[in-house]
């Protein structure tokens, strides 16, 4: 099992969600986050006083998937979240050692 963590532009959330549902992903967790990569935020000016806003609002999508799904999910998120301009975000993949469905107590891939 893998945990796929995608940081994307907030307005891309719906497209990514729909694309993932289409390929059979059953659930995901979404959070509003702030951060920066090479995009490095933006400038704001108030009466000549400049502020650099480094931390840009992004959305983090977490999806737990079976090993078989990994490449398809990554490919789907990449396609749906891409605008081609700087700041499109990143996808991180890590190993997932266990999953539990709380209601039934099922564990492993069946609990995803």
């Amino acid at each position, binding site marked *: 099992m893998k945990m796929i963590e995608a940081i994307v532009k907030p307005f891309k959330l719906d497209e990514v969600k729909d694309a993932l549902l289409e390929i059979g992903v059953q659930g995901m967790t979404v959070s509003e986050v702030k951060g920066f990569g090479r995009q490095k935020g933006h400038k*704001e*000016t*108030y*009466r*000549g*006083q400049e*502020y650099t*806003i480094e931390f840009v609002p992004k959305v983090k999508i977490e999806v737990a998937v079976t090993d078989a799904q990994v490449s398809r999910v990554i490919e789907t998120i990449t396609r749906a979240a891409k605008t081609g301009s700087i700041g499109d975000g990143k996808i991180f993949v890590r190993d997932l050692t266990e999953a539990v469905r709380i209601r039934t107590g099922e564990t492993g891939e069946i609990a995803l």
Partner: protein
Amino acid sequence: MNRLTRIMTAMLPVLACAILIGVTGLYAQEAGAPASAVTAPLVQEAAPAAVPVQPKIDTGDTTWLLVSTAMVLAMTAPGLALFYAGMVRSKNSLSTIMQSFIILCLISLQWVLWGYSLAFGPDKGHLIGGFEWFGLNGVGLEPNVDYAATVPHQAFMIFQMMFAVITPALMTGAFAERMKFGSFLVFTLLWATFIYDPLAHWIWAVGGWVRNLGALDFAGGTVVHISSGAAALACAIVLKRRLGYGKEHMAPHNLPMTVLGASLLWFGWFGFNAGSAVASGALATSAFVVTNTAAAAAALAWMVVEWLYRGKPTVLGAASGAVAGLVAITPASGFVGPMASIAIGLGAGVLCYGAVLWKSRLGYDDALDVVGIHGVGGIWGALATGLFASKAINAAGADGLFYGNPAQLGIQAMAVLISVVFSFVGTFVILKLVDGLMGLRVSEEEERMGLDLSQHEERSYS
């Protein structure tokens, strides 16, 4: 130097435009002058030697003055309260609103009890009014010929009250986000009594020594704006910078609120300037027109200069520009024509933007730019009155430099200097006194927490 060159280049076209419009205006006014001169009432300067004015209440004049009074009230709350509250951080927004709101209450009482008497009461040595009118004793419903022969004396009194209210409220922008509420109340009361009341007497009251010099200040450029601007500088210096100034993010927390406030200020300013005719008629109309024109010109000027210099036309810039233009036209509003008001507005937009930029280099923390907008705008307006004033607009006024009377510019400069020095020094002394007695600043912890919670145990947004 490179930045300086850039800003100069950005400002040049606008300034050149301002001068051109001003000069063109001379001819335009000369052509259309006689018509407007006919009915201009002699209000502010009731000539003593001339035909004695018969006091008689005019319902039109009284209506306009009472409506104007309510409009000037709206400048302080909600106008100024929102204008300032939008510019502070959210943790201080309620305390900023509270300062304007409570000044309205505090000075309303001070004015009725002794403020009006000190400012406009029977002259004592050209310096101050006496206590004869304490508690509005003798200030009744019959007109007072010295100030307004066609409205009840109390109508004039309460109109003037709103000016006494807004002046200290303007200053709150300088010490925003860091002053103890109790000390602020004491300071405001002392300031109104020892700075505003005498200054209003000098410049407006019968017998006041600056008025006797022949200084022109139609609606309070020196008394309200220069005095609050100079006092604001003293506040910024004595209270020192906010914690984290220059390092932390101190951007305005709600600009729509600020624009709403600026627009309400603009609305109320018609009462401030056109109401200062103390009559409903030709002079009030002329003041109304130039007030609107100058505000519009200044907002555009600030926006354009900022656009050229920084690359973006900002909303805060346009709103600040409008206020700067309103400030600058204030002393001139009863003495200049529409073309001159465009020049005054353009000049205000450019000069005040420059002043606001300069602030960050000088290093003092005038949080909401009271010095840059009210001080600099007020000084420009007072001097511009000495340039553009014309007896064709108001026979009771005087001609300025461009109408062949260079001496008027000198008198205006004198009035500026007197107001700046008196207000700055006096404010400095009062601040030091209050600081010694009860301290001016909140503790570091309270400042970090924000004044809304630390001073009032409330929050704007919960």
